[in-house]
């Protein structure tokens, strides 16, 4: 679906920020090869772990003669960043490093990414290309409600917005009442947040009697940093009247602005002149052809601070084989609605939380707030999905409510093939997030 009322210059190869998006494929591949060869040599000479692994495989930088030769190179993983904490994977000398970003990770030891000025510029450029593609221009007011600080979300959109000459409101996450006040008072036209935090903002607006269409100038939402679904996007757009754009990025590779969705919504264009994508089979580690679903792997081909080669993102997606009608040559991937880390095995079946979300939100009366609870019992594990009831969905007729529960169950069941217990709960009782949300409570004995 193409969204309406596009500024006429959104899809323009002549736009100074977007020009690279339309680079013809052949020179693009040549550029990628050139940059890949440069990166491999650079990392081989400077990053001991990479050199060691190449030597183990008998690979030398000069063996990379085509883009397909990338498969000769060793993979890298998040555990490498942990093991080499703080700066074992640093490529550039310390006097070229201008900024660190860290991610706490859920398992204790953080990872640390040193960036050079060039890395920051590339990252900023990626964010600017995304914003431009969304139709955001100088004159727009961007409320950056991603966290600022060690997390890349806030600063990424901040520099991207300023780079385009937009007015940026660096509010960060939290203090939801003030988010709405400033959104109205400053005439904010675009907000960047995790989808789950934006849902929280929507709740607060409702509580205050604020109607986005009537009381704000908000037109764009820039959503990423956690998996979400088409159904969630439709819910957000229906409730608020904004256009919900996808942005993708990760600290290990740069930050938000590695990829973004164009108005044709075919998926997300990857800025592959800087971030070279591959899809691999997560079990055999063999590269998969475009079109097949597997684990997304990135190689940074213009990064100095922390060059990452064949970094396994754990995100599951596919690269499209069709050309996008917008004319951009940068390859398109599906929105990330699943991470291999998030996969649940319930009653022996593989289930992704995104599948459950997609099912739930096909029932429009249900609020977009849910929680998945798993517990061990003596027999089959208990599998419960809690869903909030909305005012609009409530009827004092018990058959109507039972029917609602059944429709939710059927919608979920049709996707995952399992029969969870659906519990209707009161509004505003399930946890809300100010950043990345945790929707799965898995209390099963391991």
């Amino acid at each position, binding site marked *: 679906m193409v969204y309406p009322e596009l500024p006429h210059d959104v899809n323009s190869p002549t736009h100074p920020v977007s020009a690279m998006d339309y680079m013809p494929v052949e020179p693009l591949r040549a550029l990628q090869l050139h940059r890949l060869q440069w990166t491999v040599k650079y990392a081989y000479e400077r990053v001991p772990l990479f050199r060691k692994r190449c030597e183990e495989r008998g690979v030398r930088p000069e063996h990379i003669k085509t883009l397909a030769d990338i498969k000769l190179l060793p993979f890298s993983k998040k555990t490498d960043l942990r093991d080499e904490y703080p700066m074992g994977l640093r490529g550039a000398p310390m006097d070229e490093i201008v900024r660190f970003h860290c991610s706490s990770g859920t398992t204790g030891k953080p990872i640390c990414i040193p960036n050079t000025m060039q890395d920051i510029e590339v990252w900023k450029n990626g964010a600017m290309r995304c914003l431009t593609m969304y139709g955001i221009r100088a004159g727009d007011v961007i409320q950056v409600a991603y966290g600022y600080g060690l997390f890349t979300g806030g600063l990424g959109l901040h520099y991207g917005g300023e780079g385009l000459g937009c007015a940026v409101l660096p509010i960060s996450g939290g203090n939801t009442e003030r988010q709405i006040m400033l959104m109205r008072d400053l005439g904010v036209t675009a907000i960047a947040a995790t989808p789950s935090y934006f849902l929280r903002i929507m709740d607060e607006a409702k509580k205050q009697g604020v109607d986005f269409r009537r009381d704000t100038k908000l037109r764009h939402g820039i959503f990423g940093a956690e998996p979400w679904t088409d159904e969630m996007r439709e819910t957000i757009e229906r409730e608020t009247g904004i256009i919900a754009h996808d942005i993708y990025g990760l600290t290990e590779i740069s930050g938000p602005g590695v990829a973004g969705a164009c108005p044709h919504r075919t998926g997300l264009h990857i800025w592959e002149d800087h971030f070279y994508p591959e899809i691999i089979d997560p079990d055999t580690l063999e590269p998969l052809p475009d079109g097949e679903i597997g684990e997304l792997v990135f190689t940074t081909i213009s990064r100095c601070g922390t060059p990452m080669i064949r970094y396994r993102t754990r995100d599951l997606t596919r690269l499209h084989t069709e050309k996008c009608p917008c004319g951009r040559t940068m390859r398109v991937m599906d929105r990330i609605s699943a991470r291999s880390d998030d996969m649940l095995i319930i009653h022996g079946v593989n289930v992704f939380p995104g599948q459950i979300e997609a099912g739930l939100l096909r029932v429009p009366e249900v609020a977009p707030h849910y929680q998945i609870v798993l517990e061990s019992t003596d027999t089959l594990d208990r599998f419960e999905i809690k869903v909030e*009831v909305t005012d609009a969905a409530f009827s004092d*007729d*018990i058959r109507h*409510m039972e029917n609602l529960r059944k429709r939710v169950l059927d919608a979920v069941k049709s996707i995952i093939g399992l029969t969870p217990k659906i519990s209707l709960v*009161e509004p505003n009782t399930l946890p809300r997030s100010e950043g990345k949300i945790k929707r799965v409570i898995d209390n099963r004995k391991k």
Partner: protein
Amino acid sequence: MTINQISVFLENRPGQLANICRTLANADISIVTLSLADTAEFGIVRMIVSDHDKAKEVLKKAGHVANMREVVAVTVPDRPGGMAEILDVLDAAKVDIEYSYAFAFHHGEKAVLVFHFDDNEKACAALAAAGHPVLDYKSVLEEAK
């Protein structure tokens, strides 16, 4: 003639009904009568209260899902066959009862049946024609005193 009833969603969690009653008590609203409909997973409490607008407002403010429904209250002669007479009238008028509950006024003698029909207007007309008094909100409150 219908009266307003407040219906509230009851999550299956201990203390939920008490929370609702306390919310109403704190707003100085008294419950004339209530009825509970439940399933294994959730319940619905239906109430006639001394101030329904205020009740709806305070319940919503306290985070409950509540709505207002128009129901029909009819007095029933408190003797064997009293209820059957009423039901015969409704049967003859071909109206469907979606749900119903009963309560007695303090002084005995009369009981009140509360109904939600598929067609409240038609049911009221049939009851009135058969000589069964349909109560208005004011008289329910009066009688309940």
